[in-house]
């Protein structure tokens, strides 16, 4: 973690380097729970909603939907729920993991602010089961927050009362999809629900209107309440406001999480600058990179100068998605990389939809045989055809024929791989194996 190259403040990672940042006494000495107090004692829920609308905070879970707008669509039933999505399983994404372990009180404070704004009857934080230490720290922080009076009855003397419950997952990528998350929280298999309704804001947990938001989305709220939505919106460019954590991994000298002002620097800056990635390892060059989690189509080095902005990346044919960037250097086997990603989707497909269940299996098998030397030239067309069956037209954003967007994400890396590195695929086939081994 390092300071921003622009003059933007650190909004969500200001405490990350503090030794005891996960404990309430440390949180309180660094401005903790001031925003919650302000929201509950000085603001109406609508005013909180308005600040968040003004901030134009885009959800940080992958889809990038405006947080305020989602809240405003919540159906006004007597019992409503808030569920925080801490399932973070998109491969190469590791920002929520850090926020959960290193600043659990900030997450809790943001969650309570959101719960107040939407009038939730109870709030849940769902954290993937593999985060043993994260679960421990968030539960400990919840205990501390009850004792401090930040959770429970008449919080800080206001007339707002709520309970906050931590819920552990048990290992399933698909549970990050918001309707699968709700099913999982209900104690069931993580099967995404059929849409419509498009949003759990209409029918969610136990059939009640429910808001699902990401951990990083929630962690931004204390700052927004303290500094105002306009101050947040003043950072970044256009619709991409505020700052965002980018999780940089793969072949860089310094992998890690970096909070930067939205849209102000490029992928190249993030990879090369000494305060961020510090360049590609061994002084090599970038062969390709993944701009937003493995569901996103790959880019070649010519796209390194794109700004880290949601709209610019979308226009260029991919997405910032979950905010994770994977750098692959010029010694990387692209067939193997694409195969591994396919294997992941095949393992994690929940199996409800035929194109996703069967398609991921076929694609994985063909990719494996190309990589291990049994591929045929006709396999490339076969792959594209199988991909087309999942996401007809192979456009971006993809056409959806399935219940959730895991299915249409499967073609991203395979199609990009074939488009960008056709020769490399053919070499595998002609030479009967991987030239990188």
């Amino acid at each position, binding site marked *: 973690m390092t300071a921003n190259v622009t003059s933007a403040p650190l909004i969500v990672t200001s405490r990350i380097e503090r030794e005891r940042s996960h404990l309430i006494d440390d949180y309180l000495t660094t401005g903790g729970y001031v925003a919650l107090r302000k929201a509950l004692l000085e603001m*109406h829920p*609508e005013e909180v909603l308005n600040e968040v609308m003004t901030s134009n905070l885009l959800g940080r879970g992958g889809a990038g939907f405006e947080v305020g707008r989602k809240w*405003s*669509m919540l159906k*006004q039933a007597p*019992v409503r729920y808030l569920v925080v999505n801490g399932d*973070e*399983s998109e*491969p*190469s*994404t*590791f920002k*929520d993991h850090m926020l959960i372990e290193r600043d659990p009180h900030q997450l809790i404070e943001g969650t309570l602010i959101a719960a107040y704004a939407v*009038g939730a*009857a*109870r709030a849940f934080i769902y954290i*993937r*089961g*593999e*985060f*043993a230490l994260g*679960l421990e720290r968030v*539960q400990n922080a*919840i*205990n501390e927050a009850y*004792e401090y009076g930040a*959770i*429970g*009855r008449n919080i800080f003397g206001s007339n707002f*009362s*709520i309970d906050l*419950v931590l*819920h*552990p*997952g*048990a*290992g*399933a*990528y698909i549970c990050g999809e918001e309707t699968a998350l709700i099913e*999982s*929280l*209900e*104690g*069931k*298999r*993580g099967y995404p629900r059929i849409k419509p309704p498009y949003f759990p804001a209409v029918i969610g947990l*136990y059939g009640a209107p429910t808001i699902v938001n990401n951990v990083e989305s929630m962690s931004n709220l204390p700052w927004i309440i303290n500094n105002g939505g306009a101050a947040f919106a003043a950072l970044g460019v256009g619709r991409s406001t505020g700052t965002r954590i980018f*999780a940089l*991994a*793969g072949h860089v000298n310094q*992998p*890690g999480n970096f909070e930067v002002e939205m849209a102000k620097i490029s992928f190249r800056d993030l990879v090369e600058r000494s305060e961020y990635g510090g360049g590609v390892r061994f002084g090599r060059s970038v062969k390709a990179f993944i701009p937003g989690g*493995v569901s996103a189509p790959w880019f070649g080095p010519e796209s390194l100068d794109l700004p880290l902005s949601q709209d610019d990346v979308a226009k260029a044919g991919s997405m910032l998605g979950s905010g*994770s960037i*994977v750098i692959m250097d010029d010694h*990387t086997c692209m067939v193997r*990389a694409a195969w*591994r990603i396919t294997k*992941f989707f095949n393992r*994690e497909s929940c199996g409800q939809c035929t194109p996703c269940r069967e398609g991921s299996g076929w694609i994985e098998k063909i990719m494996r045989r190309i990589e291990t030397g049994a591929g045929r030239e006709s396999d490339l067309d076969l792959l594209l055809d199988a991909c087309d069956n999942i996401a007809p037209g192979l456009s971006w954003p993809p056409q959806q024929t399935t219940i959730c967007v895991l299915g249409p994400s499967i073609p991203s890396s395979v199609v990009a791989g074939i488009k960008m590195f056709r020769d490399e695929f053919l070499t595998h086939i002609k030479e009967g194996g991987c030239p990188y081994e």
Partner: protein
Amino acid sequence: MGVFTPLMLERARQLIELYPEKRSALIPLCHLAQEQAGYLTEELMDEIGSLVGVSSAEVLGTASFYDMLHTEPVGRYLIGICTNIACLLQGADALLTHAEQTLGIPIGGTSSDSMFTLEELECVAHCDHAPCAQVNYRFFGPLDPGNFDELVQQLRSNELSEVIPPHGTLIRVKRNVGLKVSFEDVLEERKLSDSEIANRKAISEAAKEKSE
């Protein structure tokens, strides 16, 4: 073993209390069962079913969806090695092969002394420490064959028993307060005045317009 110990039963009941519907506690209770027995025995699944009000078949059907829930015995240390994209790029495949050789077990296997079970993991969000591993869901990385062997040595000699508790991701997750707010309280407290309802409608209409 078979059924929950009195202490576990107490914790199970506390967990069930936290949810409007009992079934929500099914997965947390499975974690407790694994903490007690290492894996989900049939007797424990039966008991979980009766505690949350579903059949044992439902418990099994649900549990089998989740990678962390085991219906067969596992070793004292569950070693998972991530081979997903960021770890792959840093040599995870070689690490996994090395682990299979060192431990003498294939992926999914358990050593004959019941010390180790080896698994191949999908990304566990520790990619800046690639290639990485989890032992009973505690993180290690970056690893190479050398420090992997050291880790295994430390596990064998029990040096890490403080850092790595036995099974159960909830073993150190203890809620020390019950619920404080009933839904009746909430409904009373959240009653909106007519003007507040109108205000909210206006906000939501404006948002709808903006999205069209």
